[in-house]
């Protein structure tokens, strides 16, 4: 509107001195009006954008909301022909019932142990190797680095069968003889759950990247001061990459907690089941009682969700940064 009114005024008053002043004033008002309309336009588009984002977040979060709402529904409500969207009554006892039907406490404990052990081992062995590859010149370092890079390309599903066979045929374990015959090896033991995942090549690679950007002068200064290589690493260099440590710790913990296929293959007893495997087995147990299944699912999902809320930034940096590097 303002655009169409002002040009005419400008034309009419053109030429005279007074006109020039008027023109300036008019141009100023036009500019302001334009700015105002542009800002309202922007505000409208921002509101529209916000609304759109709210809708998208709602859709993305809906499955989790639905999971939770279902976990507190009564069994008759689950099976009734017109189930209300919002539960009529909140049946928190679904959680205790689910816990009675399946030992989710043991499952969670097992997953927690695996996640913690793998987190620590990845931090220790991964940072040591990453440090050596980034900061120390030694014979064979490029061969080792090439080997680590190649290992990163290997999908787990391509080596899962030999890994299973190795567990099964560990000599002198689980009744096996020297040649791994006669018994069950490490099958259905803690060793099987813990040993193969101690270090991932990817975490070594990450640590190498973190260490590359640390100042070598500090290392040399520590050496000149007479610190041993081990002490230089533990007291000087490792503390420099604390944020990186947290990133790897979160990635390793998440991988440990969410792992499914490997525990599925190498365990058979209830006492060694992990939380995800336990949940998958519980599905057969719960059958169509989806309120109980969702209670179990909530228990399996919530720890990771809580951790994500606490370490959101580090999680995102870990997943995104590790992908981009």
């Amino acid at each position: 509107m303002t655009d169409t009114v002002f040009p005419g005024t400008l034309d009419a008053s053109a030429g005279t001195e007074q006109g020039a002043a008027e023109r300036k004033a008019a141009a100023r008002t036009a500019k302001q009006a334009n700015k105002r309309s542009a800002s309202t336009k922007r505000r409208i588009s921002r509101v529209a954008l916000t609304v759109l984002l709210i809708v998208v977040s709602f859709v993305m979060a809906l499955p989790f909301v639905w999971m939770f709402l279902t976990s507190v529904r009564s069994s008759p409500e689950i099976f009734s022909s017109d189930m209300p969207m919002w539960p009529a009554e909140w049946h928190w006892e679904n959680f205790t019932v689910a816990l009675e039907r399946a030992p989710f406490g043991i499952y969670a404990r097992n997953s927690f142990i695996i996640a913690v052990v793998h987190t620590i081992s990845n931090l220790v062995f991964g940072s040591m190797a990453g440090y050596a590859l980034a900061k120390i010149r030694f014979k064979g370092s490029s061969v080792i680095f090439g080997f680590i890079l190649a290992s990163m390309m290997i999908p787990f599903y391509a080596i899962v069968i030999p890994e299973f066979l190795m567990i099964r045929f560990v000599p002198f374990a689980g009744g096996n003889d020297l040649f791994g015959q006669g018994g069950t090896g490490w099958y259905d033991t803690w060793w099987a759950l813990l040993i193969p995942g101690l270090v991932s090549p990817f975490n070594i690679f990450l640590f190498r990247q973190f260490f590359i950007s640390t100042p070598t002068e500090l290392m040399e200064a520590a050496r000149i001061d007479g610190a041993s290589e081990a002490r230089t690493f533990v007291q000087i260099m490792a503390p420099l990459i604390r944020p990186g440590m947290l990133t790897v710790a979160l990635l390793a913990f998440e991988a440990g907690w969410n792992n499914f296929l490997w525990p599925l293959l190498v365990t058979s007893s209830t006492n060694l089941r992990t939380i995800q495997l336990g949940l998958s087995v519980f599905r057969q147990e719960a059958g169509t009682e989806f309120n109980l299944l969702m209670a179990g699912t909530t228990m399996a999902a919530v720890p990771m969700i809580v951790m994500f809320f606490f370490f959101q930034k580090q999680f995102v940096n870990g997943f995104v940064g590790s992908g981009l590097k």
Partner: protein
Amino acid sequence: MSTNTVDRQTLSTTRRRRTPTLTQRQGRWGLLFAAPATVQIALWTGLPVLVSIILSFTNYDMLNPPEFLGFDNYVTLANDPVFWKALGNNFIMAIVGIPISILISLALAVMLNQGLRGNSIFRTAVFLPHVTATVAIAMIWLWIYSPGGNGLFNIVLGFFGVPNQAFLASPSQALPSVILVTIWQGIGLKMMIYLASLQGIDQQLYEAADIDGASAVQKFFRITIPMLKPVTFFILVTSIVGNFQTFDLIYNLTNGGPANSTTVITYQIYQTAFQQFRMGLATAQSVVLLIVLVVLTIFSRRITGGKDD
């Protein structure tokens, strides 16, 4: 010139005489630091790859010693319609699911990059599926897709008068239903990666475009999109690699069914090895998977000219 070389020679010999103790000591420590992880990976990744390749040429059931077959397993696979079906399903999942989730995540990232209020809540909601265990996600969607009248989707469809759908129980709807879950689960990470690289674009490019009077649409297609090309390629490749490793979702949602309509290569490996105990044939399948993924990764590294540091 000649004096120079002499100088350099004497210099290097003196240095060589002085340094060995330090380099040697360092070298020993380097090896010591790298050894535990290297041995672990050699044992649990390197060795299994070799064993996989060797076993793929044999007939092996874990009870009797492996029996050499030559290429028989690969010939069997080439003539196995279910294996081709699994490869095809992986292919369909990739070709349908990945472009859709890339487009959605790009759109969301651009919106988020406007710096609106409530950004972090929104990011959390979109990223949450990525952090949650796939088994838990499968359970949730199993319930959402429930073919009875109480599945969320059937409730919603009921509002519009659409009769109950079978979804995961229907041979024609199962694969699209699975793909929808992979899209929902995959958006978060892609969006975050896009967001990170959007924030890395030099603002001066946009300022220069503003001076030239470019519109928002022009800026998007002439600056944003070209600048995001490398990261899009990266997302594409990692998504394809990830897609070929889908297992938890299939195992818990559909068991590859109905009628193999959702089976994938990893699920075939699992079934052949751990339900039928045909270890030789299963390792042949896993070698095929290995070749597909390694070729893809090397090919993509070539294209991006990406060095790893």
